[in-house]
């Protein structure tokens, strides 16, 4: 066996193991830093306008349709939520902070009832400028929503730039949402 071949036979598995190790380390590291979520799904809506819909208002709020989202004065959030959803409750505080600091948030109340929504808002505060009701959940399917809460960033030309599934945390807001809102301002 030539020395080169011997070295290759010894080195190749070592190199494969080292490359694998480096890869796994990077993935775990990025997961720890909240930069990578293996469960996150890319939304096909990104780069497009939301699909056509017209939803009535809920709990005395004004509803909206896709045409109302065509040209917001500054980038805004559309937040899918429900009074029965536990992670929605977890992000309620974060949404209030965002609303207070001048971010426009419109809510779509998912498979919920008016009285339950009213109680929820009374207990947890209301960050929403408008709330539309998707009682059947069919508009959610057209948006590709697969659970609540989901948050979408819509830029000034009405195009969806970001989708986040799950409760918004301070980490996510600082690392991703804030820079995004600034970028599209």
């Amino acid at each position: 066996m030539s020395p080169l071949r011997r070295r290759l036979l010894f080195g190749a598995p070592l190199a494969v193991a080292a490359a694998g190790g480096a890869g796994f380390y990077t993935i775990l590291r990025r997961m720890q830093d909240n930069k990578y979520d293996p469960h996150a799904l890319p939304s096909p809506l990104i780069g497009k306008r939301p699909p056509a819909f017209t939803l009535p208002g809920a709990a005395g709020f004004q509803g909206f349709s896709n045409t109302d989202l065509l040209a917001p004065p500054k980038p805004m959030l559309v937040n899918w939520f429900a009074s029965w959803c536990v992670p929605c409750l977890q992000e309620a505080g974060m949404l209030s902070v965002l609303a207070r600091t001048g971010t426009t948030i419109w809510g779509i109340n998912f498979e919920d009832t008016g009285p339950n929504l009213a109680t929820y808002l009374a207990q947890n505060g209301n960050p929403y400028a408008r709330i539309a009701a998707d009682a059947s959940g069919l508009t959610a399917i057209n948006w590709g929503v697969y659970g609540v809460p989901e948050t979408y960033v819509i830029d000034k030309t009405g195009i969806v730039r970001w989708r986040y599934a799950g409760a918004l945390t301070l980490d996510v807001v600082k690392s991703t949402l804030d820079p995004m809102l600034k970028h599209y301002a």
Partner: protein
Amino acid sequence: MRRWLLPLLLVPALAWGQMVTRDGVTLTQPQETRAEAIGGQLRCLVCQNESIEASGATLAKQLRVIIRQHVVAGDSDKSIIDFMVQRYGIFVLLKPPVMPLTYLLYAMPGLALALGVLAFWLGRRTRVPPPAPLSAADRDRLEELLK
């Protein structure tokens, strides 16, 4: 024999005519079979490792209803699957399509085989030629030593 022929021929029609109701949608048995085949290819996004057919999630149920409504309306399998991909992305497909993102995935068996062949080729040993037969003097000495 002829008496039985007509009823026998009509047996499949019985199966065809049978209506089933699944998740509140009524459809014929062949339509239901088609709907199940389509739903079996789609991933439930809530549980992520179950098909829409197998999942108990509310969203999966809603999607099953939508699939059945489209089947009853006479839409093709492809258009129903496209409907889902358009909304949820290629992740809804339990079998990923061949596309630039999945080239590496589909090339993996070939790559693994090539690596194995390479390792095998590198690891092969050159055959050492057998030693020359002993000379007469050596054989005598061997006899002497072994005595």
